[in-house]
C-alpha cells in the first residue's frame, strides 16, 4: 500500500526541528536566494548544512526551494549553489521553470521536483516536465485527488499535493497583481498578498450593484477527510503549506496529519478520528477551512468572506521548550504568562500534558508572578513533565488566556 509522506514547512532551523520531531517525513525550506519567501528567515548555507544533518539523523528528507521564476541575472551563482546543495546531501530541489531545471541538471545530480508555481494540472503537461527532468510534480491546487492519481498512473511520476494551509486564489504562478501595483515580483518572492485586501466591487451588468468584500481571498485548505483518497490514488506526498507560520502551527499540523496517515495505514479510520483532527486544527489562527478542489472543483463557497476572524483559534502559541536540565525546563515565551495559567505541553508523540507550574522562575532563579513576552522562563521539573523534551511546543487555552488578560 502506498503510504503518503508528510511534508512540512520549515521557515527556520527551529521550525525544521519541530517538524521533524513531531513526525514529518520530509521538510521543505528556502536558502538565501532563488526561493519564493523573501521575507522568511530562510537558511544560510551553514544553517542548511546543519538542517540536513539533523533531518537525516532523524530519517527525514530535505527539499530546498529554488522556485522563484528567475530572470537571467538572478541565475548568477545557481550552479555553484546546486553543487553545494548536492555536497550536503539535500534530497531534492523544487523548481518552477525549465531554465532553472536545466541549470540544476547541468551542474548536479540533484533530484528535481516541479513547484506548484508551474501550475501543472494534467498528464500531458506532466509528461513534458518529466522530459525536462522532473521526478516529482507538486500539482496545482485546482486538481482533485482523483485527477492527480491519473497523472501519477499515466506518467509514473511521484505526485505531491497540498493537504493543508493557505491557498492562492489564482492559478499558482499566474498572479502578477503585486508586480504591476506594488513593483514587487510575486513570482520572485515579493507577493504583497493583494488577494487578502478588501475590495469594492462595482458590477457593470447587474444593475450597477456595489459590494464590499474580499472576493479574491481563498479559504484555507484542510484535507483531513480525504486521507483515504490520497492512499487510494497513489499520491506520494502530502504537503503542509506555511513556511511563515509558527512552530505551534507546524507541530499541530504535522501531528494531526501524522496520526491520520498512520491510523489509516494501520486500518484504523473513524469519524471520531476526523472530528478530533478538525478540532485540533482549530487551535491556531486560520481562515475558515474548505476542501479546495480535492474532491470537486472549488466553487464560490471557497471564498473567504471573513465569517470568522483569521485570528480565531482555540489556543495561543505560548512557548517552546528550549532546554531541559536536571532540575528545570527552560521555556522561551512568545506571550506574557501569569503564574496560575495551565500550560499544555504538546508532546512529540501526539499526547498533550496539561500542567500548571507551582511557581515561575526567571533565568536568574528569581520567583516571578508574571513572565513577559520574549523571556526565558524556568519551571521545575516533575514526574508529569518527564517526557517533555527540547522543541516541545507549549500552548494555552484561549478562553483562559483571555480571562487572565481581562
Amino acid at each position: 500500500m502506498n503510504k503518503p509522506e508528510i511534508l512540512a514547512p520549515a521557515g527556520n532551523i527551529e521550525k525544521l526541528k519541530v517538524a521533524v520531531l513531531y513526525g514529518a517525513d520530509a521538510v521543505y525550506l528556502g536558502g538565501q536566494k532563488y526561493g519564493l519567501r523573501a521575507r522568511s528567515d530562510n537558511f544560510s548555507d551553514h544553517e542548511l548544512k546543519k538542517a540536513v544533518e539533523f533531518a537525516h539523523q532523524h530519517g527525514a528528507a530535505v527539499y530546498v526551494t529554488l522556485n522563484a521564476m528567475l530572470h537571467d541575472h538572478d541565475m548568477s551563482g545557481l550552479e555553484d549553489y546546486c553543487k553545494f546543495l548536492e555536497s550536503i546531501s539535500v534530497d531534492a530541489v523544487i523548481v518552477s521553470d525549465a531554465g532553472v531545471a536545466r541549470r540544476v541538471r547541468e551542474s548536479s545530480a540533484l533530484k528535481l521536483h516541479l513547484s506548484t508555481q508551474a501550475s501543472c494540472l494534467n498528464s500531458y503537461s506532466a509528461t513534458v516536465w518529466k522530459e525536462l527532468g522532473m521526478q516529482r510534480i507538486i500539482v496545482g491546487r485546482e486538481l482533485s485527488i482523483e485527477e492527480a492519481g491519473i497523472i501519477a498512473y499515466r506518467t509514473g511520476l511521484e505526485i505531491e499535493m497540498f493537504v493543508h494551509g493557505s491557498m492562492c486564489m489564482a492559478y499558482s504562478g499566474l498572479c502578477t497583481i503585486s508586480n504591476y501595483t506594488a513593483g514587487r515580483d510575486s513570482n520572485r518572492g515579493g507577493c504583497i498578498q493583494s488577494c487578502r485586501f478588501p475590495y469594492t466591487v462595482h458590477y457593470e451588468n447587474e444593475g450597477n450593484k456595489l459590494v464590499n468584500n474580499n472576493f479574491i481571498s481563498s479559504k484555507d485548505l484542510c484535507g483531513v477527510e480525504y486521507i483515504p483518497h490520497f492512499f487510494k490514488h497513489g499520491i506520494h506526498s502530502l504537503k503542509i503549506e506555511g513556511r511563515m507560520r509558527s512552530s505551534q502551527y507546524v507541530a499541530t499540523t504535522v501531528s494531526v496529519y501524522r496520526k491520520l496517515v498512520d491510523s489509516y495505514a494501520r486500518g484504523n479510520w473513524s469519524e471520531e478520528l476526523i472530528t478530533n483532527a478538525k478540532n485540533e486544527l482549530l487551535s491556531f489562527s486560520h481562515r475558515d477551512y474548505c476542501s479546495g478542489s480535492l474532491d470537486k472543483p472549488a466553487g464560490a463557497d471557497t471564498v473567504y468572506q471573513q465569517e470568522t476572524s483569521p485570528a480565531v483559534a482555540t489556543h495561543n502559541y505560548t512557548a517552546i521548550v528550549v532546554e531541559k536540565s536536571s532540575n528545570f525546563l527552560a521555556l522561551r515565551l512568545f506571550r506574557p504568562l501569569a503564574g496560575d495559567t495551565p500550560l499544555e505541553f504538546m508532546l512529540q508523540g501526539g499526547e498533550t500534558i496539561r500542567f500548571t507550574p507551582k511557581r515561575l522562575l526567571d533565568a536568574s532563579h528569581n520567583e516571578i508572578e508574571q513572565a513577559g513576552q520574549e523571556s526565558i522562563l524556568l519551571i521545575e521539573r516533575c514526574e508529569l513533565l518527564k517526557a517533555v523534551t527540547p522543541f516541545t511546543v507549549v500552548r494555552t487555552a484561549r478562553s483562559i488566556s483571555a480571562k487572565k488578560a481581562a
Partner: protein
Amino acid sequence: MIFNTYISSENDLKLVLCAPGLKEVLIAPEELSKDGKTPLAYAEALASAALDAGLKTVLVWDLVMTESEFKESLSKLASLKLKAFDAIRVSDLGAARYVCDNFSQVALQLAPDSADHNYDTLYSYSRAFADRLERLSLSIELPEDKLCEYIKRLPLDCEILAAGPLKIFYTPRPLLHAGSRRQIKATASAADMSNRPLPVIQTAHGTHLYLDRDYFILHKLAKLTEAGLYAARIDLRPYSPARHSAHGIDRLLNAYHNNSDLRTLWPSKTGSPFFKTNKTTAQFKRLKPRILETRDQRCLATVLEYNKDKHTVITALKDFNLSDARIAIHPDGRMREITLSGCRDIEGRPLSNCSEGQLVVVNSLYALTPGTLITTASSCT
C-alpha cells in the same frame, strides 16, 4: 514584422483586411480560450473565410486545464476541422505536447501564461517541441533589451503583445457570481492599492482581473523589429462590441503606418510598465533579513532574552569557549563589541564553555535584543 489580432465575426474580417501589415488572425473559441468570444461552431467557417482572404489563421486553445478539463477540451476540439487553421496557439505545456503528438498538419505557437523570464527556459521550450514549435510569445515583463536579445538568440520566431489588456490574475473559481456561466463584468478597487479600478471579468473559465492601464508599445517597436521580431499582437477585444473583436484595428494600423500619434487612438489609458526596465528586482535586498548573510559558521550564539536589570540569555549555536564571544550583530545589522561576564547555565552553575543548544545566562548586556547574533571577532573582518 507582421501584426496579428483576434477576430470573431465577418465584420472583424472586413476591418482586418483594411489594416495594413495585418497578416494573421487569431480565432479564440469561447469553449477553448480563456478570453474567447467566438462560438465554437462558427470558428471553422470564420477561419475558412480568413484563409480565402489570404490571411494566416491561428486557433487559440489557451486554457490552463486540469485532467478533466483537458479531456473536455479534446472532445470540443474534435468537432473542429483543423484544416482551416494554419497553427494552434496554446498556453498549457500539456496542450503543446498534445498538438505535437496528434495534429501533425498544424504548426504550434506557444504563449505561456507563466513568468518565463530567462533564456534557458525559453530555449528549453524550443528544444522540447523541436521543429513543431514555430513561434514563442514573449513575456511583457521582460524589458526591451532582453526582448531584443531573446529575439536574436532563440532559434524560432517570437511575438510580443504590442497593445492590449494586461491580465494580472486568473482563477478558475467563479468570484463574481456563483454558478453563472455567462460573462459578468465588474470593476474592483482596493484602498490598499490606491483604489485603482481594476476590470474584472467572469467567464465560463473562471475570473480574470486586468490592470487599469493597457499595455501599449505600438509606438516603440523599432528596436524589436530591427532585432527580428516576427509578430506584434494587438488585442482590441475589450473595446469591441459583443461578438466582435477587432473594432478599430483598421484605423490603428493605418495610423501606425502613417506615423500618427497612436496612443490617442487607443480607447483606454496605457502604459508599458517593464519595457524600459524591470525594477521589481530592486525590492529584494530590502525584503531579505539583514543579518542572513552573517548567520554562518562564525556565529556562536543568538540572544533569546534581554532583561535590562537582571540578565541576558543566549543560546549556543555550536560548542564554544565563552571568552570567544566578542561581537554582537543586531537584527538591523549594527555591530558592537561585547564581553560576556557572569556566565552560568540554567541551574546557576558557572560556565566557561558551552555546547550547542545550551542556554547561557550572562550579566545583562545593554540593549541586546532577542535575535541579536553573537560572533567571534573574526566575523567582522
